[in-house]
């Protein structure tokens, strides 16, 4: 479980919701945002051959490009302490938070990005579900 970057629960959809008109963005709109985020990554990794996307980054470069701000770091440490996150989870969180910041077009990884990244790791963590 630890190796998955993103874990989400897909709950059953209520029949009443199916009657409603479609909501959310179309594939084209999402694809445009994804393309922008990928373009930021391409520019970032231009000097690093062999790396194309955030998932490829490791080590010192990851620490450099995905360094969260003070608030984000506090949140990360708190989550790591509370849920017993592994070292692998720590690095994966940094990568995912970097991607979320890229989708927003933000240069720095801030607390909201880190919070969202942490939220995708909580499924299956005993403390998080009260088990």
């Amino acid at each position, binding site marked *: 479980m*630890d*190796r998955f970057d993103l874990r989400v629960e897909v709950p059953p959809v209520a029949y009443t919701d199916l009657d409603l008109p479609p909501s959310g963005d179309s594939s084209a709109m999402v694809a445009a945002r994804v393309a922008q985020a990928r373009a930021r*990554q391409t520019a970032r990794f231009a000097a690093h051959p062999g790396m194309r996307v955030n998932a490829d980054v490791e080590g010192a470069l990851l620490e450099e490009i995905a360094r969260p701000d003070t608030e984000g770091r506090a949140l990360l440490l708190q989550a790591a302490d509370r849920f017993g996150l592994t070292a692998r989870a720590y690095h994966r969180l940094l990568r995912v938070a970097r991607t979320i910041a890229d989708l927003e077009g933000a240069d720095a990884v801030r607390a909201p990005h880190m919070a969202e990244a942490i939220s995708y790791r909580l499924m299956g963590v005993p403390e998080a579900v009260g088990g």
Partner: protein
Amino acid sequence: MVARALTVAFEGINARLVEVQCAVSPGLPSFQIVGLPDKAVSEARERVRAALSALPVALPSKRITINLSPADLPKEGSHFDLPIAMALLAALDIIPREDVADTVALGELSLDGALVAVLGALPAAMAAGDGGHTLFCPAACGPEAAWVDATRVFAPATLAQVIRHYSGQAPLTPARPGEVVQDRGTRDLFDVKGQERAKRALEIAAAGRHHMLMVGTPGSGKSMLAARLPGILPDLSAGEALETSMIHSIAGLLEQGGISRTRPFREPHHTASVAAIVGGAKAQNRARFRWLITGCCFWMNCRNFRAWFWKHCASPLKQAKWLLRVRMRISAIPAVSCWSRRPTRANAGICPNRRGPARARLSAGMITWAAFQGR
């Protein structure tokens, strides 16, 4: 004197140049092919003989020996017919030896001399281009081979056209490249009602090439969401499209020579064998190539996959790459990986690996999922 022509042998998705040498010498009349040919290459003898008599070209009552060099490299496939026929025609002084010696050819002959489409024209064109050679391939493979613009590609429909090209009676015109297929598919994220959180996770996965796991009851829309992943991923870059197309070319999946920029979507069944998923040893088994992943892969009901699968998977999952083993050559192809499963008790947060620490590794956890279910 020996006449020479060039062709290719495939090692995984790479094409390696092979020289076809033809010697016509005095002796008991015979027609032999040496140089580690497989059954399909050995049978080229009969096809070439029949195609030449259909032209008509009479084979001399001499000893004809074909050598495929390097002789220690195994040769597989039916694409050796055309180069063998061309080397033989050059040895009989029907077409000029020096021109044929500089030409890479591939194609299967039918008994009436028509050229039948073969697999791997695109990698062959790349190999021909690297060596500065011209490529001859069947008409049906022309658009695919010409796409890379690496070399001049001629795509004759019959062996007679090859002879008329060299004799100057009817020179062939270079093949035109196939068109880039623009197909975004009809599946739109807009169709999925609700599931906003999963949609957002899908977007993040696509943006950073992260892998994601979806857990939910049957019918909640996991497959529907995963099927919409190719639609939100950016188009393949030129290099990636070439890499994908080379694989598709070897697997015979390119239709009409059209190259697609859309990322492929694969959905392996959990009963698939390990060879079917991570690539088998024989390039001949085309079905095994169908799992090649360059875009995204959806592993439905992932806990049903067997223990060996997780052992093989741990590394690709870690690196977000998929390792492809073809004839011992390993190439890693980046993929966005999307997984789904139904909820189990393991989902409630109980660690299935009781011996290990609470943060049990995925592999250990997954392997025991099946056993865990029964309790």
